């Protein structure tokens, strides 16, 4: 699989993730190896010297179509309103291999949607049992929340005893949402907020702890509606609950909206012009009377490098003092 990726060959996959142990669960990646009788799963087959591989032969394509037919036989196909419409591996591959329908008309199992935790829904009628959430939760988070339940057609991927996640060891890191190739796991904050193609994704750095995870903010109509993984940083796409779900303060109604000056012990809204003039006048007055030693500044471990640089430059050059520090020795 890696070899194919490096050579720009696109082998379809539903269950492969370079961070995780290969499970070979989905069989979408089958390829024909010259000399081998059976088709091989590309994700589980190491390349060897002189190996000849056909990635889109008739046999391979037919095998993939068969897998897709089986998958959609037991899948809630209400694509019209699906949150992943247009951003769904199952759709993409059905389109790529022209699978319009399935001959296997059986009972589609409808599972109740679990909406119990504050952060994401679990809709197992959409689950394709790729197992990525199972492996990721166990191998990266270490929480071991999910596993396969029952067998055969009834197989369901879920938490122990099908409990709501609050009753499990789940730490609400949200990483399982970001590996799910379909709409089985979806952030609540994005529900009905926009189609995938209307949502702009902006890569940035998490504002919480010093690990500095890279993540993508999902933005629609100038509002953040969610977060998704970004693999460009040293977090390799991993996040914790703070990075994944901790952004809502940006749109909090408590945000300060304009400068305030305290008059008769109550804050009054003023213009920037007035506020800055006032601060500058007071600073200048104290500076003239007392000199730089009367000033001190605390800068922020939440501000950017550029802002911290300007802040200490301001304290040192404008207010003439080295009394500058930040609280976050803590």
């Amino acid at each position, binding site marked *: 699989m890696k070899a194919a990726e490096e050579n720009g060959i696109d082998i379809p996959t539903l269950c492969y993730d370079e961070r995780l142990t290969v499970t070979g669960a989905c069989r979408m990646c089958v390829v024909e190896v010259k000399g081998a009788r059976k088709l091989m799963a590309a994700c589980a087959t190491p390349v060897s010297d002189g190996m000849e591989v056909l990635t889109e032969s008739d046999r391979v394509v037919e095998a993939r179509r068969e897998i897709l037919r089986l998958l959609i036989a037991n899948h809630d196909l209400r694509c019209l309103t699906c949150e992943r419409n247009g951003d769904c591996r199952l759709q993409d591959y059905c389109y790529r291999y022209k699978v319009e329908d399935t001959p296997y008309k059986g009972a589609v199992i409808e599972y109740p949607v679990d909406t119990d935790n*504050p*952060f994401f829904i679990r809709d197992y009628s959409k689950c394709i049992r790729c197992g990525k959430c199972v492996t990721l939760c166990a191998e990266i988070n*270490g929480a071991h929340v999910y596993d396969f339940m029952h067998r055969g057609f009834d197989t369901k991927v879920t938490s122990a005893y099908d409990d709501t996640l609050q009753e499990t060891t789940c730490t*609400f890191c949200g990483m399982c949402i970001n590996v799910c190739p379909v709409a089985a796991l979806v952030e609540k904050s994005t529900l009905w907020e926009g189609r995938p193609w209307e949502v*702009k994704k902006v*890569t*940035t750095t998490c504002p*919480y702890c*010093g*690990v*500095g995870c890279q993540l993508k903010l999902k933005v629609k109509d100038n509002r*953040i509606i969610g977060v998704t993984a970004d693999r460009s940083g*040293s977090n390799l796409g*991993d996040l914790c609950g*703070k990075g994944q779900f*901790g*952004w*809502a*303060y*940006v749109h*909090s109604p*408590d945000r*300060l909206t*304009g400068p*305030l000056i305290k008059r008769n012990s109550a*804050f009054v809204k003023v213009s*920037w012009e007035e506020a*800055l*003039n*006032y601060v*500058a006048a*007071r*600073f200048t007055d*104290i500076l003239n009377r007392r000199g730089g030693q*009367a*000033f*001190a*500044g*605390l*800068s*922020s*471990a*939440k501000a*950017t*490098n*550029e*802002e*911290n640089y300007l*802040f200490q*430059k301001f304290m040192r*050059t404008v*207010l003439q*003092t080295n*009394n500058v*520090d*930040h*609280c*976050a*020795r*803590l």
Partner: protein
Amino acid sequence: MTNSINEILETDVILVIGSNTTEAHPVTGYRIKQAVRNGKQLIVADPRRIELVKYADIWLRHRPGTDIALLNGLAHVILRDDLWDKEFVAERCEGFEEFEKTAAKYTPERVAEITGVDAELIEQAAHLYGEAEKATIIYAMGITQHTSGTHNVMAVANLAILTGNVGRRGTGVAPLRGQNNVQGACDMGCLPNYYPSYQPVEDPAARSKFERFWQVKLPEKPGLTVTEMTDAARRGKLKCMYIMGENPVLSDPDGNHVVEALQNLEFLVVQDIFLTETAQLAEVVLPAVTFAEKDGTFTNTERRIQMVRKAIDTESKAKPDWQIITELAQKMGHPWQYPGGPAQIMGEIAQCAPLYGGISHQRLEQEGGLHWPCPTPSHPGTLYLHADGFARGKGRFHSVEYLPPAEEPDEEYPLILTTGRTLYQFHTGTMSRRSRLEELRSEELAMIHPKDAEIYGIRDKDTISVESRRGKVTTKVQVTDQVPPGIVFMTFHFKETPTNVLTIASTDPVCRIPELKVCAVRVEKIISNPPVDERDNYVGVYKQ
């Protein structure tokens, strides 16, 4: 950090001390757990039964504030049993003889007495760490937030250089920074004794360099640290403070004193995104914007400089901090001009801060994050430090001795309070408490051991008061053996329970980090929850 985060996966033995990594730095916590799953070995030194204890080969449950004794004890065994890297020490270190003498005094037996850890476990841990081909030490505020913080850090460094675990992939020491850009704030010179890139204020050459660069005369004396500022303000020596994006009323030790200090000022300006507890004390409040509304860079704990990108436009009159500072400087008659915004400011930083010499927004956009030192535009950045020797020539051993914490429990205040973070909230809660994380954890839960709970007649979820010589707070309680007997653990995320009114402002003599980790307290039950008789009824029901 001397090395990068993902090198944790390549090391053989990990020693975690004073860091509840899985809660405070979760993604780094994942790496430690992944390493253990891949067969790497883990030593955890922590008074609390933190999650990593489950993954540990050895758990050293030392008393809070006894880190130096423990670390010196490990060094003692490593020296005694000849597990140290003689070649590395001879070639690359100095101060060894004195250090050897100090370490000699820390026999496992004596260390066991001070720390409460079995001598046998100390021996085992020393062998595990000392015999490893590659080992790394991870620590956080549990190490730095003591009166002896600087000495703790030195004791950690001693252990690493003694065993030659520096300057190679998968080794090193890893201080984990609490807030996202602590590293950057330090790098940028938001420190009383350093200009950007750690150029000392007291060094005349550095000073004249910056005088030329900024075209002003600069003060010669190093300034005050945050805790000294509080003191100076209380004594009336400071008249005016400008606070940007910090909430010292909740985050700083001895919170009542901080309020007093700030009230004692002639003029206080606070610049923030919310009307925080600190902003409420200000005369002028300037509204800033969040990380999602501006461009710039953050530097993470592994020295990696990464872009912050504007995702949305601000819907109110709030402005980015850089713009507010620039306009203020202009109003005060300084010709600051940054029409190019943060990218232009980074250009200026690159000119005066050698560690960032090769950094530009353009490069970060093209190449992704870069680790400093990155002195020139063609330099690829530095994943791990000290590969070809130490910055100052040789690595120095510092002989540091164990000193008891500034305040020890006594009859009046018989318990030790120690503080930290939880997974779902962050720092003083100004950001995390305004998100859905609040639904998972919305109030303080002081942790107390079942034995102590029995002594004070406290049950799970009761409301208690916790009182120190400086103040008193009330909190709900969680009875758990995650903490050892004699110790109460609390966070400082919740303004309803401002834990820092209890803590001490006595500071580390060198680094001036306040003693947030250890102070003496007493507890008292206020409200039973649920009321006792009702609870007895429950028991009755279960019995039937």
